[in-house]
Protein backbone atom coordinates (compact mmCIF):
# COMPACT_ATOMS: atom_id res chain seq x y z
CA UNK A 1 0.00 0.00 0.00
CA UNK A 2 1.34 3.35 -0.91
CA UNK A 3 0.43 6.57 0.74
CA UNK A 4 1.02 9.65 -1.29
CA UNK A 5 1.17 12.70 0.93
CA UNK A 6 -0.45 15.67 -0.72
CA UNK A 7 0.69 18.96 0.61
CA UNK A 8 -2.09 21.34 1.46
CA UNK A 9 -1.78 24.39 -0.75
CA UNK A 10 -0.30 27.14 1.34
CA UNK A 11 -2.02 30.45 1.77
CA UNK A 12 0.51 32.97 0.64
CA UNK A 13 0.05 36.67 0.14
CA UNK A 14 -0.15 35.99 -3.58
CA UNK A 15 -3.13 33.69 -3.27
CA UNK A 16 -4.74 35.80 -0.57
CA UNK A 17 -5.09 38.91 -2.69
CA UNK A 18 -6.76 36.63 -5.24
CA UNK A 19 -6.14 38.89 -8.22
CA UNK A 20 -3.18 36.80 -9.40
CA UNK A 21 -5.21 33.64 -8.98
CA UNK A 22 -8.01 35.17 -11.02
CA UNK A 23 -5.50 35.83 -13.79
CA UNK A 24 -4.18 32.28 -13.62
CA UNK A 25 -7.70 30.91 -13.86
CA UNK A 26 -8.51 33.24 -16.72
CA UNK A 27 -5.33 32.19 -18.50
CA UNK A 28 -6.49 28.57 -18.43
CA UNK A 29 -10.02 29.29 -19.60
CA UNK A 30 -8.86 31.73 -22.27
CA UNK A 31 -6.37 29.16 -23.52
CA UNK A 32 -9.13 26.57 -23.84
CA UNK A 33 -11.42 29.09 -25.50
CA UNK A 34 -8.97 30.18 -28.17
CA UNK A 35 -7.43 26.76 -28.80
CA UNK A 36 -10.90 25.27 -29.24
CA UNK A 37 -12.07 28.16 -31.40
CA UNK A 38 -9.00 27.69 -33.59
CA UNK A 39 -9.68 23.97 -33.91
CA UNK A 40 -13.34 24.56 -34.77
CA UNK A 41 -12.33 27.11 -37.39
CA UNK A 42 -9.64 24.87 -38.92
CA UNK A 43 -11.98 21.88 -39.06
CA UNK A 44 -14.69 23.99 -40.65
CA UNK A 45 -12.15 24.84 -43.34
CA UNK A 46 -11.35 21.19 -43.80
CA UNK A 47 -7.93 21.19 -42.11
CA UNK A 48 -7.31 18.17 -39.91
CA UNK A 49 -6.35 19.09 -36.35
CA UNK A 50 -4.72 16.86 -33.76
CA UNK A 51 -7.83 16.91 -31.57
CA UNK A 52 -11.42 18.01 -32.12
CA UNK A 53 -12.54 21.34 -30.69
CA UNK A 54 -15.04 19.66 -28.39
CA UNK A 55 -15.46 16.29 -26.75
CA UNK A 56 -19.22 16.37 -27.23
CA UNK A 57 -20.90 13.26 -28.65
CA UNK A 58 -23.87 14.31 -30.78
CA UNK A 59 -25.92 11.61 -29.14
CA UNK A 60 -29.05 10.82 -31.09
CA UNK A 61 -27.11 10.98 -34.39
CA UNK A 62 -23.96 9.33 -33.05
CA UNK A 63 -24.42 6.26 -30.86
CA UNK A 64 -24.02 6.63 -27.12
CA UNK A 65 -20.72 5.36 -25.76
CA UNK A 66 -21.28 2.91 -22.91
CA UNK A 67 -18.74 1.19 -20.73
CA UNK A 68 -18.52 -2.58 -21.22
CA UNK A 69 -19.72 -3.10 -17.65
CA UNK A 70 -22.43 -0.46 -17.75
CA UNK A 71 -25.65 -1.52 -16.07
CA UNK A 72 -28.16 -1.47 -18.88
CA UNK A 73 -31.33 -3.34 -19.81
CA UNK A 74 -31.96 -6.86 -18.45
CA UNK A 75 -31.21 -9.89 -20.52
CA UNK A 76 -32.17 -13.54 -19.87
CA UNK A 77 -29.42 -16.05 -20.62
CA UNK A 78 -29.70 -19.46 -22.21
CA UNK A 79 -28.10 -22.80 -21.46
CA UNK A 80 -25.89 -24.64 -23.92
CA UNK A 81 -28.91 -26.44 -25.39
CA UNK A 82 -30.75 -23.17 -26.02
CA UNK A 83 -33.29 -23.42 -23.18
CA UNK A 84 -33.55 -20.48 -20.80
CA UNK A 85 -31.37 -20.88 -17.71
CA UNK A 86 -34.07 -19.54 -15.41
CA UNK A 87 -35.40 -22.16 -12.99
CA UNK A 88 -38.32 -20.00 -11.86
CA UNK A 89 -37.05 -19.92 -8.28
CA UNK A 90 -38.62 -16.47 -7.88
CA UNK A 91 -35.64 -15.11 -5.95
CA UNK A 92 -35.41 -12.13 -8.25
CA UNK A 93 -39.13 -11.49 -8.04
CA UNK A 94 -38.89 -11.64 -4.26
CA UNK A 95 -35.97 -9.31 -3.87
CA UNK A 96 -37.06 -6.75 -6.42
CA UNK A 97 -37.73 -3.56 -4.47
CA UNK A 98 -39.90 -2.16 -7.24
CA UNK A 99 -41.97 -5.36 -7.51
CA UNK A 100 -41.72 -5.18 -11.27
CA UNK A 101 -40.86 -8.81 -12.08
CA UNK A 102 -43.71 -11.23 -12.65
CA UNK A 103 -42.91 -14.93 -13.21
CA UNK A 104 -45.20 -17.89 -13.68
CA UNK A 105 -43.64 -21.33 -13.38
CA UNK A 106 -44.36 -24.64 -15.09
CA UNK A 107 -42.94 -28.14 -14.99
CA UNK A 108 -39.76 -28.59 -16.94
CA UNK A 109 -39.62 -31.52 -19.40
CA UNK A 110 -36.06 -32.29 -18.28
CA UNK A 111 -36.43 -34.55 -15.18
CA UNK A 112 -33.22 -33.17 -13.66
CA UNK A 113 -34.78 -29.71 -13.57
CA UNK A 114 -37.74 -29.10 -11.34
CA UNK A 115 -39.32 -26.00 -12.85
CA UNK A 116 -38.89 -23.51 -15.58
CA UNK A 117 -40.43 -20.13 -16.28
CA UNK A 118 -43.53 -20.11 -18.40
CA UNK A 119 -43.75 -16.34 -18.55
CA UNK A 120 -41.22 -13.82 -17.33
CA UNK A 121 -42.22 -10.15 -17.48
CA UNK A 122 -40.23 -7.17 -16.32
CA UNK A 123 -41.98 -3.82 -16.22
CA UNK A 124 -39.15 -1.43 -17.04
CA UNK A 125 -41.47 1.45 -16.33
CA UNK A 126 -41.25 0.49 -12.66
CA UNK A 127 -37.71 -0.91 -12.51
CA UNK A 128 -35.26 1.25 -10.58
CA UNK A 129 -32.20 -0.43 -12.11
CA UNK A 130 -30.84 -1.47 -8.74
CA UNK A 131 -29.43 -4.73 -10.07
CA UNK A 132 -30.63 -6.79 -7.09
CA UNK A 133 -32.27 -9.30 -9.42
CA UNK A 134 -28.90 -10.03 -10.98
CA UNK A 135 -27.30 -10.43 -7.57
CA UNK A 136 -30.05 -12.72 -6.34
CA UNK A 137 -30.14 -15.16 -9.23
CA UNK A 138 -28.47 -18.46 -8.18
CA UNK A 139 -28.02 -19.76 -11.73
CA UNK A 140 -26.82 -16.59 -13.48
CA UNK A 141 -29.94 -16.51 -15.62
CA UNK A 142 -30.44 -12.77 -15.65
CA UNK A 143 -27.94 -10.05 -16.31
CA UNK A 144 -28.16 -6.35 -16.94
CA UNK A 145 -25.72 -6.04 -19.80
CA UNK A 146 -27.86 -5.76 -22.92
CA UNK A 147 -25.98 -2.49 -23.75
CA UNK A 148 -29.34 -0.91 -24.42
CA UNK A 149 -30.46 2.28 -22.72
CA UNK A 150 -33.06 3.56 -25.16
CA UNK A 151 -36.07 2.10 -23.39
CA UNK A 152 -38.77 4.67 -23.90
CA UNK A 153 -42.20 3.73 -25.20
CA UNK A 154 -45.46 5.50 -25.91
CA UNK A 155 -47.62 3.41 -23.61
CA UNK A 156 -47.08 1.90 -20.19
CA UNK A 157 -47.87 -1.54 -21.56
CA UNK A 158 -45.03 -1.25 -24.04
CA UNK A 159 -42.62 -0.76 -21.15
CA UNK A 160 -43.23 -4.39 -20.12
CA UNK A 161 -40.74 -6.82 -21.65
CA UNK A 162 -41.78 -10.48 -21.87
CA UNK A 163 -39.61 -13.58 -21.91
CA UNK A 164 -38.88 -13.94 -25.67
CA UNK A 165 -37.98 -10.27 -25.81
CA UNK A 166 -35.69 -10.53 -22.81
CA UNK A 167 -34.10 -13.65 -24.29
CA UNK A 168 -33.49 -11.77 -27.49
CA UNK A 169 -35.58 -14.23 -29.53
CA UNK A 170 -37.95 -11.59 -30.87
CA UNK A 171 -37.30 -7.89 -31.25
CA UNK A 172 -39.15 -5.52 -28.98
CA UNK A 173 -41.91 -3.92 -30.99
CA UNK A 174 -44.81 -1.78 -29.83
CA UNK A 175 -47.89 -3.90 -29.32
CA UNK A 176 -50.98 -2.92 -31.26
Amino acid at each position, binding site marked *: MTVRPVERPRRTFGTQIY*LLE*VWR*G*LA*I*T*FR*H*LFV*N*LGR*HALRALGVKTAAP*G*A*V*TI*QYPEDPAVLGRRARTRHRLLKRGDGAPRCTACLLCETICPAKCIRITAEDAPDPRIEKRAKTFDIDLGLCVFCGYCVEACPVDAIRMDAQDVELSAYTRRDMIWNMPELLGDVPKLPRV
Partner: protein
Amino acid sequence: MSLALDQAAWTAAKVVFAIFGFGLGIAGFLGWVERKQSAVMQDRIGANRASIFGFRALGLFHPIADAIKMLTKEDFVPRGADKTLHALAPMISLGAGLFCLAALPFGGTVTALGRAWDLQPIASPVGVPLVLAVLALGAHGIVMAGYASGSGYGLLGALRGAAQMVAYEVCLAASLAGVLFLYGTLDLQEAVLWQVRHGLWGIFVQPLAFLLFLTAGAAATKRAPFDLPEGESEIVGYHVEYSGMKFGMFLMTDFVESIVICGLVTALFLGGWSVPGLNLPGMGALGGLLMAASFSVKVLLLLFLLMQIRWTLPRFRFDQLLDLGWKNLLPLSLLNFLATIWGIYLWR
Protein backbone atom coordinates in the same frame (compact mmCIF):
# COMPACT_ATOMS: atom_id res chain seq x y z
CA MET B 1 -41.02 71.17 -38.58
CA SER B 2 -40.19 73.44 -35.67
CA LEU B 3 -36.82 73.09 -34.05
CA ALA B 4 -38.20 72.06 -30.65
CA LEU B 5 -40.31 69.29 -32.15
CA ASP B 6 -37.34 68.21 -34.21
CA GLN B 7 -35.24 68.04 -31.08
CA ALA B 8 -37.85 66.00 -29.24
CA ALA B 9 -38.15 63.53 -32.10
CA TRP B 10 -34.36 63.12 -32.26
CA THR B 11 -34.16 62.51 -28.50
CA ALA B 12 -36.97 59.97 -28.67
CA ALA B 13 -35.24 58.20 -31.55
CA LYS B 14 -32.01 58.05 -29.56
CA VAL B 15 -33.71 56.70 -26.46
CA VAL B 16 -35.57 54.06 -28.45
CA PHE B 17 -32.36 53.02 -30.16
CA ALA B 18 -30.42 52.88 -26.88
CA ILE B 19 -33.05 50.77 -25.12
CA PHE B 20 -34.33 48.49 -27.87
CA GLY B 21 -31.52 48.40 -30.38
CA PHE B 22 -28.53 48.53 -28.14
CA GLY B 23 -29.87 47.25 -24.81
CA LEU B 24 -32.32 44.51 -25.65
CA GLY B 25 -30.47 43.62 -28.82
CA ILE B 26 -27.21 43.00 -27.04
CA ALA B 27 -29.00 41.39 -24.10
CA GLY B 28 -30.57 38.83 -26.41
CA PHE B 29 -27.27 38.28 -28.15
CA LEU B 30 -25.57 37.81 -24.77
CA GLY B 31 -27.82 34.84 -24.09
CA TRP B 32 -26.20 33.17 -27.08
CA VAL B 33 -22.68 34.37 -26.19
CA GLU B 34 -23.09 33.04 -22.68
CA ARG B 35 -24.03 29.56 -23.91
CA LYS B 36 -21.44 29.33 -26.64
CA GLN B 37 -18.53 30.93 -24.81
CA SER B 38 -18.96 28.73 -21.76
CA ALA B 39 -19.33 25.71 -24.01
CA VAL B 40 -16.20 26.32 -26.05
CA MET B 41 -14.04 27.05 -23.03
CA GLN B 42 -15.28 23.85 -21.41
CA ASP B 43 -14.51 21.77 -24.54
CA ARG B 44 -18.19 21.42 -25.33
CA ILE B 45 -20.29 22.53 -28.28
CA GLY B 46 -23.22 24.22 -26.60
CA ALA B 47 -26.85 24.64 -27.55
CA ASN B 48 -27.15 24.07 -31.31
CA ARG B 49 -30.50 22.38 -31.90
CA ALA B 50 -32.92 25.27 -32.46
CA SER B 51 -33.41 25.51 -36.19
CA ILE B 52 -35.50 27.39 -38.71
CA PHE B 53 -36.15 25.32 -41.87
CA GLY B 54 -33.23 23.12 -40.92
CA PHE B 55 -30.78 26.00 -40.54
CA ARG B 56 -29.11 26.01 -37.17
CA ALA B 57 -26.82 29.02 -37.57
CA LEU B 58 -24.51 27.96 -34.73
CA GLY B 59 -27.39 28.05 -32.29
CA LEU B 60 -28.14 31.73 -32.93
CA PHE B 61 -31.87 30.96 -32.91
CA HIS B 62 -31.82 29.82 -29.31
CA PRO B 63 -32.49 33.28 -27.84
CA ILE B 64 -35.59 33.46 -30.07
CA ALA B 65 -36.68 30.00 -28.94
CA ASP B 66 -36.08 31.11 -25.35
CA ALA B 67 -38.23 34.18 -25.80
CA ILE B 68 -41.07 32.14 -27.34
CA LYS B 69 -40.85 29.65 -24.50
CA MET B 70 -40.96 32.34 -21.84
CA LEU B 71 -43.86 34.13 -23.49
CA THR B 72 -45.96 30.99 -23.77
CA LYS B 73 -45.22 29.52 -20.35
CA GLU B 74 -47.77 29.64 -17.57
CA ASP B 75 -47.45 32.79 -15.52
CA PHE B 76 -47.65 31.32 -12.06
CA VAL B 77 -48.31 33.40 -8.96
CA PRO B 78 -48.09 31.40 -5.74
CA ARG B 79 -50.84 31.46 -3.14
CA GLY B 80 -49.98 33.91 -0.39
CA ALA B 81 -48.15 36.18 -2.80
CA ASP B 82 -48.89 39.86 -3.10
CA LYS B 83 -50.12 39.97 -6.70
CA THR B 84 -49.43 43.63 -7.39
CA LEU B 85 -45.93 43.69 -5.98
CA HIS B 86 -45.19 40.32 -7.54
CA ALA B 87 -45.96 41.72 -10.98
CA LEU B 88 -44.33 45.10 -10.30
CA ALA B 89 -40.97 43.78 -9.10
CA PRO B 90 -39.49 42.56 -12.42
CA MET B 91 -40.70 45.70 -14.15
CA ILE B 92 -38.90 47.90 -11.65
CA SER B 93 -35.71 45.89 -11.98
CA LEU B 94 -35.73 45.86 -15.77
CA GLY B 95 -37.00 49.41 -16.09
CA ALA B 96 -34.22 50.77 -13.90
CA GLY B 97 -31.61 48.94 -15.94
CA LEU B 98 -33.06 50.09 -19.26
CA PHE B 99 -33.26 53.71 -18.16
CA CYS B 100 -29.54 53.67 -17.37
CA LEU B 101 -28.82 52.61 -20.94
CA ALA B 102 -30.36 55.79 -22.24
CA ALA B 103 -27.95 57.90 -20.21
CA LEU B 104 -24.81 56.37 -21.71
CA PRO B 105 -22.73 58.53 -24.06
CA PHE B 106 -22.89 56.57 -27.32
CA GLY B 107 -21.12 59.42 -29.06
CA GLY B 108 -20.20 63.05 -28.89
CA THR B 109 -21.65 65.90 -30.93
CA VAL B 110 -21.23 65.79 -34.68
CA THR B 111 -22.25 68.28 -37.35
CA ALA B 112 -24.18 66.95 -40.31
CA LEU B 113 -26.92 68.30 -42.60
CA GLY B 114 -26.28 71.78 -41.30
CA ARG B 115 -26.98 71.19 -37.63
CA ALA B 116 -25.34 69.66 -34.56
CA TRP B 117 -26.40 66.18 -33.47
CA ASP B 118 -25.73 65.10 -29.91
CA LEU B 119 -25.49 61.32 -29.84
CA GLN B 120 -26.05 60.90 -26.11
CA PRO B 121 -29.74 60.04 -25.61
CA ILE B 122 -30.19 61.65 -22.18
CA ALA B 123 -27.48 64.20 -21.48
CA SER B 124 -27.26 65.24 -17.87
CA PRO B 125 -24.67 67.27 -15.97
CA VAL B 126 -24.99 64.69 -13.17
CA GLY B 127 -24.84 61.66 -15.41
CA VAL B 128 -22.68 59.42 -13.22
CA PRO B 129 -24.65 59.74 -9.96
CA LEU B 130 -27.85 59.54 -11.97
CA VAL B 131 -26.92 56.22 -13.54
CA LEU B 132 -25.61 54.82 -10.27
CA ALA B 133 -28.74 55.91 -8.40
CA VAL B 134 -31.15 54.43 -10.93
CA LEU B 135 -29.06 51.27 -11.12
CA ALA B 136 -29.36 50.98 -7.35
CA LEU B 137 -33.15 51.28 -7.72
CA GLY B 138 -33.02 47.84 -9.27
CA ALA B 139 -32.36 46.48 -5.78
CA HIS B 140 -35.90 47.54 -4.87
CA GLY B 141 -37.20 45.17 -7.49
CA ILE B 142 -35.20 42.34 -5.93
CA VAL B 143 -36.36 42.97 -2.38
CA MET B 144 -39.90 43.42 -3.62
CA ALA B 145 -39.75 40.16 -5.55
CA GLY B 146 -38.52 38.21 -2.55
CA TYR B 147 -40.99 39.82 -0.19
CA ALA B 148 -43.99 39.55 -2.47
CA SER B 149 -43.59 35.89 -3.44
CA GLY B 150 -44.58 34.72 0.02
CA SER B 151 -41.78 32.17 0.07
CA GLY B 152 -39.00 31.80 2.61
CA TYR B 153 -36.46 30.97 -0.07
CA GLY B 154 -37.37 33.99 -2.09
CA LEU B 155 -37.13 36.21 0.97
CA LEU B 156 -33.70 34.80 1.89
CA GLY B 157 -32.47 35.45 -1.62
CA ALA B 158 -33.85 38.97 -1.49
CA LEU B 159 -32.13 39.65 1.84
CA ARG B 160 -28.85 38.40 0.43
CA GLY B 161 -29.42 40.58 -2.59
CA ALA B 162 -30.13 43.63 -0.46
CA ALA B 163 -27.02 43.13 1.68
CA GLN B 164 -24.90 42.64 -1.42
CA MET B 165 -26.33 45.65 -3.21
CA VAL B 166 -25.73 47.94 -0.25
CA ALA B 167 -22.16 46.70 0.12
CA TYR B 168 -21.30 47.10 -3.53
CA GLU B 169 -23.22 50.24 -4.48
CA VAL B 170 -21.08 52.04 -1.90
CA CYS B 171 -17.89 50.75 -3.48
CA LEU B 172 -19.24 51.48 -6.94
CA ALA B 173 -19.57 55.16 -6.10
CA ALA B 174 -16.48 55.38 -3.89
CA SER B 175 -14.19 53.84 -6.51
CA LEU B 176 -15.31 56.50 -8.97
CA ALA B 177 -14.66 59.40 -6.59
CA GLY B 178 -10.99 59.69 -7.52
CA VAL B 179 -11.43 59.53 -11.26
CA LEU B 180 -14.34 61.98 -11.23
CA PHE B 181 -12.32 64.38 -9.10
CA LEU B 182 -9.59 64.17 -11.70
CA TYR B 183 -11.99 64.81 -14.58
CA GLY B 184 -13.61 67.60 -12.58
CA THR B 185 -17.10 66.66 -13.76
CA LEU B 186 -20.02 64.36 -13.06
CA ASP B 187 -21.12 64.42 -16.67
CA LEU B 188 -20.37 61.23 -18.62
CA GLN B 189 -19.92 63.16 -21.84
CA GLU B 190 -17.51 65.60 -20.20
CA ALA B 191 -15.54 62.67 -18.77
CA VAL B 192 -15.10 61.26 -22.26
CA LEU B 193 -14.13 64.68 -23.59
CA TRP B 194 -11.49 65.04 -20.83
CA GLN B 195 -9.92 61.78 -21.99
CA VAL B 196 -10.08 62.95 -25.60
CA ARG B 197 -8.50 66.33 -24.75
CA HIS B 198 -5.67 64.79 -22.77
CA GLY B 199 -5.24 61.91 -25.19
CA LEU B 200 -5.14 59.61 -22.19
CA TRP B 201 -7.60 56.91 -21.19
CA GLY B 202 -8.78 56.76 -17.60
CA ILE B 203 -7.50 53.22 -17.16
CA PHE B 204 -3.91 54.49 -17.44
CA VAL B 205 -4.46 57.35 -14.99
CA GLN B 206 -6.48 55.35 -12.47
CA PRO B 207 -5.75 51.63 -12.95
CA LEU B 208 -6.74 50.78 -9.38
CA ALA B 209 -10.06 52.56 -9.70
CA PHE B 210 -10.69 50.61 -12.91
CA LEU B 211 -10.13 47.27 -11.16
CA LEU B 212 -12.22 48.26 -8.16
CA PHE B 213 -15.08 49.56 -10.28
CA LEU B 214 -15.08 46.49 -12.49
CA THR B 215 -15.16 44.19 -9.46
CA ALA B 216 -17.89 46.16 -7.71
CA GLY B 217 -19.74 46.40 -11.00
CA ALA B 218 -19.62 42.66 -11.54
CA ALA B 219 -21.03 42.27 -8.05
CA ALA B 220 -23.76 44.81 -8.71
CA THR B 221 -24.95 42.83 -11.72
CA LYS B 222 -25.46 39.76 -9.51
CA ARG B 223 -23.70 37.40 -11.88
CA ALA B 224 -21.19 34.73 -10.87
CA PRO B 225 -18.92 34.80 -8.94
CA PHE B 226 -21.26 37.17 -7.11
CA ASP B 227 -24.57 35.47 -7.88
CA LEU B 228 -25.60 34.76 -4.30
CA PRO B 229 -28.98 36.50 -4.58
CA GLU B 230 -29.82 34.03 -7.34
CA GLY B 231 -27.91 31.02 -6.05
CA GLU B 232 -29.21 28.62 -8.69
CA SER B 233 -27.62 25.56 -7.14
CA GLU B 234 -28.96 26.39 -3.69
CA ILE B 235 -32.55 27.10 -4.78
CA VAL B 236 -32.35 30.26 -2.71
CA GLY B 237 -33.06 33.17 -4.95
CA TYR B 238 -35.33 36.17 -5.05
CA HIS B 239 -36.92 34.84 -8.25
CA VAL B 240 -37.67 31.24 -7.20
CA GLU B 241 -41.40 31.95 -7.39
CA TYR B 242 -41.27 33.50 -10.83
CA SER B 243 -42.03 31.91 -14.15
CA GLY B 244 -42.73 32.88 -17.70
CA MET B 245 -41.94 36.35 -18.93
CA LYS B 246 -41.62 37.79 -15.42
CA PHE B 247 -38.71 35.44 -14.86
CA GLY B 248 -37.43 36.35 -18.30
CA MET B 249 -37.41 39.99 -17.27
CA PHE B 250 -35.22 39.20 -14.28
CA LEU B 251 -32.85 37.30 -16.55
CA MET B 252 -32.79 40.24 -18.94
CA THR B 253 -32.08 42.59 -16.03
CA ASP B 254 -28.81 40.83 -15.31
CA PHE B 255 -27.69 41.25 -18.89
CA VAL B 256 -28.90 44.84 -19.12
CA GLU B 257 -27.12 45.75 -15.90
CA SER B 258 -23.94 44.14 -17.24
CA ILE B 259 -24.25 46.30 -20.33
CA VAL B 260 -24.75 49.41 -18.19
CA ILE B 261 -21.71 48.63 -16.06
CA CYS B 262 -19.61 47.97 -19.16
CA GLY B 263 -20.92 51.19 -20.69
CA LEU B 264 -19.88 53.13 -17.59
CA VAL B 265 -16.43 51.53 -17.59
CA THR B 266 -16.06 52.33 -21.27
CA ALA B 267 -17.08 55.95 -20.79
CA LEU B 268 -14.99 56.58 -17.69
CA PHE B 269 -11.91 54.42 -18.22
CA LEU B 270 -11.64 53.38 -21.86
CA GLY B 271 -12.09 56.70 -23.61
CA GLY B 272 -15.81 56.26 -24.37
CA TRP B 273 -16.56 56.68 -28.06
CA SER B 274 -13.11 57.99 -28.95
CA VAL B 275 -10.64 56.19 -31.17
CA PRO B 276 -6.99 57.13 -30.64
CA GLY B 277 -5.59 59.01 -33.61
CA LEU B 278 -8.97 59.89 -35.16
CA ASN B 279 -10.75 63.21 -34.78
CA LEU B 280 -14.26 61.75 -34.83
CA PRO B 281 -16.28 64.89 -33.92
CA GLY B 282 -14.91 66.59 -37.01
CA MET B 283 -15.92 63.84 -39.42
CA GLY B 284 -19.62 64.53 -39.74
CA ALA B 285 -22.13 61.70 -40.10
CA LEU B 286 -19.41 59.11 -40.64
CA GLY B 287 -17.78 60.25 -37.39
CA GLY B 288 -21.08 59.75 -35.60
CA LEU B 289 -21.39 56.19 -36.88
CA LEU B 290 -17.80 55.44 -35.96
CA MET B 291 -18.38 56.83 -32.45
CA ALA B 292 -21.35 54.53 -31.84
CA ALA B 293 -19.43 51.62 -33.35
CA SER B 294 -16.33 52.23 -31.26
CA PHE B 295 -18.39 52.57 -28.09
CA SER B 296 -20.28 49.34 -28.88
CA VAL B 297 -17.12 47.41 -29.65
CA LYS B 298 -15.53 48.46 -26.37
CA VAL B 299 -18.67 47.50 -24.46
CA LEU B 300 -18.81 44.12 -26.21
CA LEU B 301 -15.16 43.39 -25.44
CA LEU B 302 -15.73 44.20 -21.78
CA LEU B 303 -18.83 42.01 -21.73
CA PHE B 304 -16.72 39.22 -23.23
CA LEU B 305 -14.19 39.64 -20.41
CA LEU B 306 -16.92 39.70 -17.74
CA MET B 307 -18.47 36.60 -19.28
CA GLN B 308 -15.12 34.81 -19.16
CA ILE B 309 -14.70 35.77 -15.50
CA ARG B 310 -18.24 34.60 -14.78
CA TRP B 311 -17.45 31.13 -16.18
CA THR B 312 -14.02 30.91 -14.57
CA LEU B 313 -14.47 31.78 -10.93
CA PRO B 314 -16.49 29.79 -8.40
CA ARG B 315 -19.11 31.55 -6.35
CA PHE B 316 -18.03 33.40 -3.22
CA ARG B 317 -19.27 32.42 0.20
CA PHE B 318 -21.57 35.06 1.61
CA ASP B 319 -19.20 36.23 4.38
CA GLN B 320 -16.35 36.36 1.86
CA LEU B 321 -18.53 38.45 -0.39
CA LEU B 322 -19.30 40.99 2.30
CA ASP B 323 -15.68 40.95 3.50
CA LEU B 324 -14.51 41.70 0.00
CA GLY B 325 -16.94 44.57 -0.31
CA TRP B 326 -16.66 46.28 3.06
CA LYS B 327 -13.13 45.38 4.17
CA ASN B 328 -11.21 45.44 0.90
CA LEU B 329 -12.89 47.28 -1.92
CA LEU B 330 -14.26 50.16 0.14
CA PRO B 331 -11.01 51.03 2.03
CA LEU B 332 -9.03 50.67 -1.19
CA SER B 333 -11.45 52.94 -3.00
CA LEU B 334 -11.17 55.57 -0.29
CA LEU B 335 -7.35 55.29 -0.21
CA ASN B 336 -7.33 55.66 -3.97
CA PHE B 337 -9.47 58.76 -3.63
CA LEU B 338 -7.15 60.27 -1.00
CA ALA B 339 -4.08 59.45 -3.08
CA THR B 340 -5.69 61.07 -6.12
CA ILE B 341 -6.48 64.25 -4.21
CA TRP B 342 -2.93 64.41 -2.86
CA GLY B 343 -1.55 63.71 -6.30
CA ILE B 344 -3.55 66.52 -7.87
CA TYR B 345 -2.64 68.87 -4.98
CA LEU B 346 1.10 68.16 -5.23
CA TRP B 347 1.10 68.28 -9.00
CA ARG B 348 -0.57 71.66 -9.22
